[in-house]
């Protein structure tokens, strides 16, 4: 119970009871809607029995009194008018008219939205190219001195993106090779050509799987780390602090990550290749009863002069794509933590996409070059 209504000779007497506070507003609303105000010319209000009337309660009381007054009822106070009512009155009275949130729906809205999205993409592509240009120019400038190459920072990134990724890369290379070898063994056995399992594994791992798997794992692992690290620094105004101290953020944030990853990814690829070939040997031994000597001999004949290099040469290119898109998205973060999450996601998705696209281009190019 938050109100008590008594009818007197002159009109209605409203007595507030209980706690008029925000948490009770739904109950107060329900109770007030059940009151019949009809015919009253005078409403006399008392707050003597109210346990509490806080700001939200005062706001509700003001709303009620405004409604009653609008219906032509005079309001009279039996107790002094609460101070908070004045405060609410004063607060809401001063200042201009209410400003509605801007949302203009028009007939052309879908078209203009489409246009805006296209323009956003165009701008994005332009600033991406601008970023690549800056990185290229800066890497030229950095090559002039040993100190500006920041070897310690680069080493840290080789460790973070390379050394610490070895276990997961090795495990996944092992498992995927087992799957490939197993499926091809099933198929080739029908033709009595189990021996070609070795060729499938060797060529598949060295040319494609080793490097592609590694790049995708690294894109998820280090791409997100780059974007989030740089993005958090951006939010924390650390990037501005670097600029203000005359340090180029591309030189200290982007280039060490880029060169670290360009060094680490080929090395990781070699690890993935080795583990993949070892997994093939294990499977051939236990599934096809092939001796290790036989496996190695067949492997040697399957490997051409370029097989290994065709795979490894792609790694630095993939590293470049991953590092560039992750750092670029990281530097785009501004204003809010939601942007940080969004752009980190964009960085990972985009770098995986770019890696696969580049791999497809490589495949076509190598085929044309007959390598």
């Amino acid at each position: 119970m938050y109100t008590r209504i008594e009818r007197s000779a002159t009109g209605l007497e409203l007595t507030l009871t209980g706690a008029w506070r925000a948490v009770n507003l739904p109950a107060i609303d329900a109770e007030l809607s059940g009151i019949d105000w009809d015919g009253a010319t005078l409403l006399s209000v008392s707050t003597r029995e109210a346990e509490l009337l806080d700001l939200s309660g005062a706001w509700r009381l003001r709303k009620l009194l405004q409604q009653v007054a609008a219906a032509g009822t005079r309001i009279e106070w039996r107790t002094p008018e609460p101070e908070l009512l004045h405060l609410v009155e004063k607060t809401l009275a001063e200042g201009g008219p209410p400003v509605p949130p801007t949302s203009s729906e028009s007939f052309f809205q879908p078209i203009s939205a489409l246009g805006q999205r296209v323009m956003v993409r165009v701008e994005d592509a332009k600033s991406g190219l601008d970023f690549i240009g800056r990185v290229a120019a800066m890497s030229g400038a950095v090559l002039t001195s040993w100190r500006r190459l920041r070897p310690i920072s680069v080493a840290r990134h080789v460790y973070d993106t390379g050394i610490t990724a070895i276990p997961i890369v090795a495990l996944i290379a092992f498992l995927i090779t087992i799957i490939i070898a197993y499926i091809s063994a099933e198929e080739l056995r029908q033709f009595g050509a189990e021996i070609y399992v070795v060729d499938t594994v060797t060529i598949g791992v060295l040319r494609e799987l080793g490097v592609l798997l590694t790049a995708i794992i690294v894109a998820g692992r280090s791409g997100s780390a780059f974007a989030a690290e740089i993005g958090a620094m951006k939010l924390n105004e650390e990037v501005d602090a670097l600029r203000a101290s005359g340090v180029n953020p591309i030189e200290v944030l982007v280039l060490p990550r880029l060169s670290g990853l360009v060094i680490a990814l080929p090395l990781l690829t070699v690890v993935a290749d080795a583990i993949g070939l070892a997994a093939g040997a294990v499977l051939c031994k236990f599934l096809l009863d092939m001796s290790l000597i036989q496996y190695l001999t067949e492997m040697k004949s399957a490997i051409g002069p370029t097989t290994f290099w065709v795979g490894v040469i792609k790694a630095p290119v993939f590293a470049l794509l991953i590092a560039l898109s992750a750092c670029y998205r990281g530097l785009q973060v501004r204003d809010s933590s939601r942007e940080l999450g969004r752009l980190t996601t964009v960085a990972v998705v985009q770098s995986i996409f770019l890696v696969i696209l580049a791999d497809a281009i490589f495949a076509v190019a190598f085929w044309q070059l007959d390598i």
Partner: protein
Amino acid sequence: MMATVATPAIEVRGLVNRFGRQVVHDGLDMTVQTGEVFGIVGGSGSGKSVLLRTILGLHQPQAGEVRLEGRKLTGLSEQELHGYKARYGVTFQHGALFSSLTVIQNVQLPMLEHLSLDAATRDALALLKIRLVGLAESDAHKYPSQLSGGMVKRAALARALALDPPLLFLDEPTSGLDPISAAAFDSLLMDLQRQLKLTVVMITHDLDTIFRTCNRVGVIVDRKMLTDTLAGISSNPHPWIQAYFHGERAARYGAVDHAVPSDGVPRGA
């Protein structure tokens, strides 16, 4: 306000906070009476923020107890603490507004968590709070990154007041503001404190703010708290307190002679 009230708004007894081998608080006591404005002062690293976090229930102390309006807070589970969190509002040093929400959404967030109001009421109450702290209605739909430093402090105050709490905690409310904005913020705070009958606990380094607003001051020295009125504390012989209140910085206030604002009446008294 009255000097003696049955239950103090905040009571901290024998608080011990240790991080590894570093002892931050060692038997710290603190009492804040209902309706007073209490300033917490201390050197950097003296554990002001840890004390605040302990009182807010964000940090469990190694020993000692915290009572809010007579109810023991220490040793409660997250769930039990949840209800108490509607009893106080906090502003953090850097505003800590949620950067992905607009000002009005920031103010509504505590309401959504603790109250079940319909959207129209929530909007109206949130706008009332936003107007109350001196922001314009057009600021309500701005994001924190679009606000100036002073506006961020005000928006944070509006969020702290979202649930009409009787207790207000402010961590460095005027840091980073120019003296004029800081003075405006102080007078806004004093108006609200008087009209909403708030109990205010603030951490501040700003002597202006202390002299303008505080009834009593607690100084954290040697891992304990010394509490007194402004006049009392500034005559305390402890060297840190002497340096703080009687240093070059404080000299212009004439802190020694009359530790009250220039109109001669201690605020909130």
